[in-house]
């Protein structure tokens, strides 16, 4: 599946202004901003303590940051790149998901086995839902009906009805599920199991596992293959899976679930996000402290940029 | 008439020994000279000096009027050499070997083609042009080497034991070809050998022994002067140390 053309430098297809990627640096308590056309670091912003999960509001006006050690979700005004206020979040927020309605934030509180639902406009807690032990991954379905949370120790996906904020169903998956991702059509969920070393494909209607993807990289011990971040292309073609200490990103055919290739990136690759109209994929490499840039057409890693220490999450503003 | 080759007081020392000791030669145009001497007499050293593989300041060498010290390249251009050991590329064809040699003498491709045709015709090898040298027998290879040496139309042809290792009929044929060259082309030939029976009475004989020239005159004249019947006896008489020929 290799393309024959080798670009020396990635040029964005559209001549519009470059996307900016925001990377949270867990140990430095900063965000690194990257120009995705020039592939250069633009600036570094100080934020709260131990920033991990970051996502934009759907209108890209605000950037929400889980500042885990500050026990808060910080709100950054994108126009000024300044923190304007905090949101209540419960203790130790790591990952969260923003409902399509743009004002309900579902936050996983790792230590308390709960998911806290926060209204971003009213800035108060709407609900707290009991889930399994060590909740981590969060995702909201595109139609707004479901919000899924993964609990790492109980190895489950918890299905939350977004209209009633109630836990309705559970699906057992492989060990230590860390991340969930919906397909664009909302019919399927991809869930990565870190210790299990697999990615489970779950049908939303039946809430049952339809397929399991295994990974094997020649020369890399299977214990090192720990899938974490997952990202799917809108055209339904590819799924990318970050494999942690295996230092590779797996490229999966989203239709056949066949692993097509493994791309070498930095050490302990964690989370992924698209940029430049899904032409690029950025990966955060925690241990090596850099971000790798993958060309999604050629399926090649074109550059790796140094950012802060232990980059965790990445969010891209078009 | 200018000399084809003029060697003046040439001496060459190797490891404390004089391999050539006061050698003087004057070779005239269009003549055949047989250089006779046993192994170790210094024949090859002389040839190496003539074609500048060895160098010395002890004496002077002029090839077709060009000094090897002052105009070494012109001197080389006037020489054609056939070495004792075969120097052909076995894997290449006859033509490729000849073309290579021609290019080393700066001959244009047109001139080179014409010269190759001419020489191969003379040695009756035209039909072997595209054959690999490896497929040729010893006699044919020798002929190719002589043809090659003549491509650039040298004034003087040096042959270092040209017929060594060949059988009798082949040797005779080669020797005939060589002697014919002097007549047909006016070329000077200096042919060295250690075999007495290669020297014919009509040749001009030069006898080299232990680095010295013992004789330098037409063979028949030498036979008459020494009052001997054959070159063998002539040789024995002149080499007082009694080394076998």
């Amino acid at each position, binding site marked *: 599946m290799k393309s024959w053309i080798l670009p020396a430098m990635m040029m964005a297809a559209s001549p519009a202004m470059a996307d900016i990627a925001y990377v949270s640096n867990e140990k430095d308590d900063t965000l690194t901003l990257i120009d995705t056309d020039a592939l250069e670091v633009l600036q570094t912003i100080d934020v709260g303590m131990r920033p991990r999960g970051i996502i934009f509001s759907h209108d890209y006006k605000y950037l929400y940051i889980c500042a885990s050690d500050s026990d808060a979700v910080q709100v950054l005004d994108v126009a000024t790149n300044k923190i304007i206020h905090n949101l209540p979040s419960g203790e130790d927020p790591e990952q969260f998901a923003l409902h399509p309605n743009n004002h309900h934030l579902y936050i996983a509180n790792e230590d308390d086995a709960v998911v806290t639902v926060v209204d971003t406009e009213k800035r108060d807690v709407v609900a707290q839902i009991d889930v399994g032990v060590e909740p981590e991954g969060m995702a909201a379905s595109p139609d707004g009906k479901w919000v899924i949370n993964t609990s790492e120790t109980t190895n489950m996906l918890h299905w939350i009805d977004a209209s009633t904020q109630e836990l309705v169903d559970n699906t057992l998956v492989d060990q230590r599920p860390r991340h969930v991702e919906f397909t664009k059509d909302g019919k399927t969920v991809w869930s990565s199991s870190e210790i299990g070393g697999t990615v489970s494909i779950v049908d939303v209607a039946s809430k049952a596992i339809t397929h399991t993807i295994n990974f094997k990289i020649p*020369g890399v011990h299977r214990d090192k293959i720990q899938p974490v971040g997952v990202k799917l292309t809108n055209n339904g073609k590819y799924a990318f899976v970050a494999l942690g200490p295996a230092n590779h990103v797996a490229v999966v055919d989203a239709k056949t679930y066949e692993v097509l290739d493994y791309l070498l990136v930095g050490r302990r690759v964690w989370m992924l996000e698209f940029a430049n109209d899904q032409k690029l994929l950025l990966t955060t490499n925690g241990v090596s402290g850099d971000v790798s840039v993958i060309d999604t057409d050629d399926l090649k890693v074109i550059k790796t940029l140094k950012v802060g220490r232990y980059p965790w999450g990445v969010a891209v503003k078009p | 008439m200018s000399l084809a080759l003029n060697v003046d007081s040439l001496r060459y020392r190797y490891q404390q020994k004089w391999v050539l000791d006061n050698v003087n030669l004057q070779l005239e145009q269009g003549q055949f000279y047989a250089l006779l001497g046993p192994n*170790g007499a210094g024949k090859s050293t002389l040839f190496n000096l003539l074609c500048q593989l060895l160098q010395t300041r002890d004496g002077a060498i002029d090839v077709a009027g060009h000094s090897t010290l002052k105009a070494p390249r012109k001197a080389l251009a006037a020489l054609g050499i056939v070495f004792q050991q075969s120097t052909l590329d076995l894997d290449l064809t006859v033509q490729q070997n000849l073309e*290579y040699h021609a290019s080393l003498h700066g001959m244009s491709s047109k001139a080179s083609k014409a010269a190759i045709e001419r020489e191969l015709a003379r040695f009756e090898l035209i039909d072997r042009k595209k054959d690999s040298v490896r497929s040729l027998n010893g006699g044919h290879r020798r002929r190719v080497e002589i043809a090659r040496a003549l491509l650039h139309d040298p004034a003087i042809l040096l042959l270092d034991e040209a017929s060594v290792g060949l059988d009798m009929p082949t040797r005779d044929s080669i020797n005939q070809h060589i002697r014919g060259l002097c007549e047909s082309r006016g070329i000077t030939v200096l042919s060295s050998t250690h075999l007495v029976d290669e020297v014919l009475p009509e040749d001009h004989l030069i006898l080299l022994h232990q680095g010295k020239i013992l004789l330098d005159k037409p063979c028949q004249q030498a036979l008459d002067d020494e009052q001997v019947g054959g070159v063998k006896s002539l040789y024995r008489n002149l080499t007082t140390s009694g080394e076998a020929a």
Partner: protein
Amino acid sequence: MKYWVAFKGIVIREMWRFWHQKARLVSALVRPLLWLVVFAAGFRAALGIAIIPPYDTYITYDVYIMPGLAGIILLFNGMQSSLSMVYDREMGSMKILLTSPLPRPFLLVSKLVAGAIISLLQAYAFFLIAWLLGIEVPLMGYVYAAPALLITALMLGALGLLLSSFIKQLENFAGVMNFVVFPMFFLSSALYPLWKLKESNEWLYWVSAYNPFTHGVELIRFALYESWNPTATWVTLVTTVVFCGVAIWGYDPKRGMQQKKKPSK
């Protein structure tokens, strides 16, 4: 004009001879390809922590050793050419070259360039096979690599010529090859980046850093990735000129080998 004809003749002869020895091409390629496949399979994982120029991101080991293996092709062929010169001398073909009326330095440099061209062809054959095995470089890199390969090939050919001047017989040459070729290759950046050598042994690092082969390999590496390494370029150029100079001086019949040779009987 004469010079051009002679140069062409010398290059063409080398190419004909190379063509007739196809086994040479195959064995020249088998060695580095074996390394590529075997080593690379073993060292699949990333090449350590630092990303060194000219690379922009993490690379696998087989990508790293590609320029080094191209270098070893040039090294072996450079030595092979000089081996054939020793053979030529023993077989007498060298005499034909040396009795040409053109200046000797010109003839020897022509022979070196001819050998370098053959090296170049072998290197590109290697790149082609590497490409088929999935190891590619940017397209223009293959073009920029040509001068880099040529200079390095010249340097190594000159080294071969230099060695052949002082070696009398074919049998001795093989031994010299072992004392020159393998140390040159292993104590260089061909198989491991210099910073990795520095971590393990300071002495190894210094020897490798001063090894002209390292600079040749780096010159090729940067060229393949459309970049330019000034240090590598200057060191390689200067070393080539020096080696050529000494080699040609060594071939002069007043000194060097020729004089030491006993006059033949």
